[in-house]
């Protein structure tokens, strides 16, 4: 690199490609979705499944065959799949297709809300404590150790029963769903914190952070402008990989009877309670909600896996 070329750069800004050539930086590749699908066919399949499930959930009021998924007596009890009831009916004549569609709304809503809260909170705490270091980092670290030592479902159950009654109804989340979100997020946050803390410890030793410190940047500015943006990729990956686990956790809690309000369509709830008594007499009661749950979780899993490889190949196998 010469002074002349630097002068040239100030006179006329280089294009990205020219700058890359000039400074020896590999040229930035334009994202080609078709190329990505060829490279990551399973990821593409996962994305397709996610889109299908999300569209089904989002447009459930238009795709369902009966308006109210809670309504009983819509058809004969325990009727198999038919033209009137595509996925059959349950013991009380509720339409299973309608419930599966609406169940996706609950599962996805709780899953997304849970992961967002858990990931954002875990990342913020990691950023603050790991960057600050010292006693705060030590205390929070040990606290997280304690939380991780408690079985996750047990922790969720304890939170559900202890603080559940005190939480308010939110506009988009009724109290019972809000409780679920808090309960499930509570066991995602420590895991996110652990991973993110490691990354912050690594990043804060980087030369550009030292450079920022040398030029007098404040701690907050360093965290916000130099470290946080470099955590985004990992955060996205963690989010995509945690989402299926969150959906399964909602299903598990609903299965244990502490999930959404009785009667609310939810894949987990529909695989539990009275329904289980009729799985032999009506196997479609298990197959369709189970399949919806399995497809969604599978889709998020493989998509998250591909996303991780794409965004940061170095992380392959580490998360």
């Amino acid at each position, binding site marked *: 690199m010469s002074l002349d070329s630097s002068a040239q750069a100030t006179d006329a800004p280089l294009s990205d490609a020219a700058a890359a050539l000039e400074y020896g930086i590999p040229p930035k590749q334009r994202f080609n979705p078709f190329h990505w699908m060829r490279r990551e066919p*399973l990821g593409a399949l996962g994305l397709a499944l996610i889109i299908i499930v999300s569209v089904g959930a989002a447009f459930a009021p238009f795709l369902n065959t009966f308006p109210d998924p809670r309504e009983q007596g819509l058809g004969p009890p325990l009727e198999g799949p038919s033209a009137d009831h595509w996925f059959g009916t349950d013991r009380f004549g509720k339409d299973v297709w309608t419930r599966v569609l609406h169940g996706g709304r609950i599962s996805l809503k709780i899953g997304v809300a849970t992961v967002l809260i858990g990931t954002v909170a875990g990342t913020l705490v990691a950023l603050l404590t790991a960057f600050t270091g010292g006693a705060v980092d030590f205390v929070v670290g040990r606290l997280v150790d304690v939380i991780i030592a408690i079985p996750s479902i047990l922790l969720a159950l304890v939170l559900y029963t202890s603080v559940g009654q005190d939480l308010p109804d939110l506009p988009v989340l009724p109290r019972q769903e809000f409780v679920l979100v808090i309960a499930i997020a509570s066991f995602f946050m420590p895991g996110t914190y652990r991973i993110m803390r490691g990354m912050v410890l690594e990043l804060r030793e980087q030369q550009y952070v030292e450079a920022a410190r040398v030029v007098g940047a404040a701690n907050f500015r360093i965290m916000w402008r130099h470290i946080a943006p470099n955590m985004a990729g990992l955060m996205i990956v963690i989010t995509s990989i945690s989402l299926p686990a969150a959906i399964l956790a909602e299903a598990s809690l609903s299965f244990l009877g502490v999930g959404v309000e009785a*009667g609310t369509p939810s894949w987990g709830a529909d695989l539990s309670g009275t329904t289980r008594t009729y799985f032999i007499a009506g196997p479609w009661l298990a197959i369709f909600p189970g*399949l919806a749950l399995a497809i969604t979780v599978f889709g998020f899993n493989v998509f998250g896996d591909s996303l991780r490889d794409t965004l940061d190949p170095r992380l392959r196998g580490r998360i």
Partner: protein
Amino acid sequence: MRDNENYWNRLRSRPLSRRRFLVGSGVAAAGSAAILAGCGDDDDDDDDGAAAATAAATEAAATEAAAEATAAATEAAAAADEGDAKRGGTLRLWKAQEDAGLDPGIYHLNNTEIIYSTMTQPYTYQPTKNIFAMDGMAGYEQVDPTTFVWSIRPGMKFHNGDAVDSEAVAFSFGRLTKLYDLINPHTTRTGFVFVDDFEATDELTVTEHWNRPNADAPVYRARHYYSFVNPRVVDEQGALEGEWTAPDGSTEDVYSVQTLPEGVGSGPYKIVRRDATGTRTERWPDYHKHTPADDGFVEDGPYIDAWETRIMPDGAARKAAFLAGDLDVYAAIDPLELPEFESVDHVNVVELPAGGTGYLGMDGGKFHDKRSRQALQKSLDYERIIQTLWTAGGKLAAPISDLIAAYQKLSQEELASWYRWDPQEARALWEAADFAVPVEKIKLFGAVEDPLLSDVTQLYAGMIQEALGVETEVELVDQNTWAARATDVSTDVKDWELLSYGNGSAGGTTGVPNDTHLIHFDPRGYGLNAFNHWAGSPRPEVAADSEVLIGMLTAQEAETDPEARAELLTEVQRWILDNHYCNWRMPISSVSYYGFNKRLQDFGQDDWLNFYDRRRESMWLSEA
């Protein structure tokens, strides 16, 4: 370059990665699902049926042959051999939850298997046969309309060796009145409210002095509340419930025995385990003889050695355990499940008359205005409820069980005039009704252990919301919490609006109209304990209605002529339905099905309708 590589080559060359694991798991899961779906309904049902029929025929033939062979032997030797052959084994039962106490005078849920097996009652009564089978009593005599004399079976002992005598029996019965006065328990007070005192006349005779006649007194004494308890153990090891003041002003400490300490009972079994997993009772070798042995009893005590009761809150787990042969009794099979049960070789499905119960109790603190209760009842579509819930047929249910045919004179047609769905009128009544406490949301409160109740309650909730335009909520909690909150009498206003209980699928009767089901309307029974409908209510209209109903209930109890009593009972039922008082019986199944393991013999199927099944000592296990 990575981009030029073939994806599948890269995939193959990789070690086992998370993604590969996921792919493999997905394929395996899909394959398993397909296999399961394919195997769900195979074509050999008929073969199974034929095999079952053949097996049944073979079994029947074998039984017949065995009976003939037995008849050929000498009568005495055969009886002895048969008795020996029947002895042994463990009866395997289940219950949904732990008991919350065992004192027979304080009725709690989930304890009858212990009380019936470890304690002695006067006798059992089978309403379907109108039979009194003597247990701790040897006989009784109605000396005059207000004097009743008992003869106690001689030779009985409590488990600690103390004699069961008239003092103990008089103490046991008299304690109920005192417990009721002190802690207002669940006990059916109508069984003793007419009694002035229980007097120990001589060592083996107890005389009841009544202040008025009572038509049901003998039947009441068959209930488990009237179990004999050892006075010495109760006073020495019981928990003090309080100081009771007698009418003459004297006082007395009253104790309960919620843990049934050693020596308190005199039944055929003793408790050997009672914990969070269940209970186990085993034979007490010094149990007294029943000579002669009435129906359901055996001279030398029960055939079965032990009872093991597992706590199984989950309905699906109970069903699976029963179908796997790990339980001997499974009550209330849904008709939709019948093919599943009937296809299992070791299962004996018995069809019994319907005696189910389903209620929506109303909080009188909020629904004191008759119009509000009427609005709730008119918001329910009874025909749709029956169609949705009762695939084998359903019917409307009156305040008295139609299993007590002698007293139930209301026809289905007549009942339909009260059970009328009219959403417009319901809303008009609701809007016109007076509410001392605003009702912005109607919470229907039930217990989670009942596998059908959740959906049944949601069905009611949906109809009420649709008809009245008021938001509804279903809250389900565990059974003991449900019972505690249901019977919390510390407040004039409950933390729920409607109490949902009973799924209407199966049940029975003791033969007493009060038990099935007037106690659920009685202002001194559940009306007081659960529904804030009682004579002392701060809501004047509820208090006035309660006084009227108490008068009618008292009059019918005192009427000993069956025909005249039936008339009075019909009047009571009409009054309850006209005034929408306190509670509302919901439609029930027309038929009920019970499953028994085929190894359980002589289980007395009618007894399963009248609550005395657990006292049947003649049950035996064929594989014991």
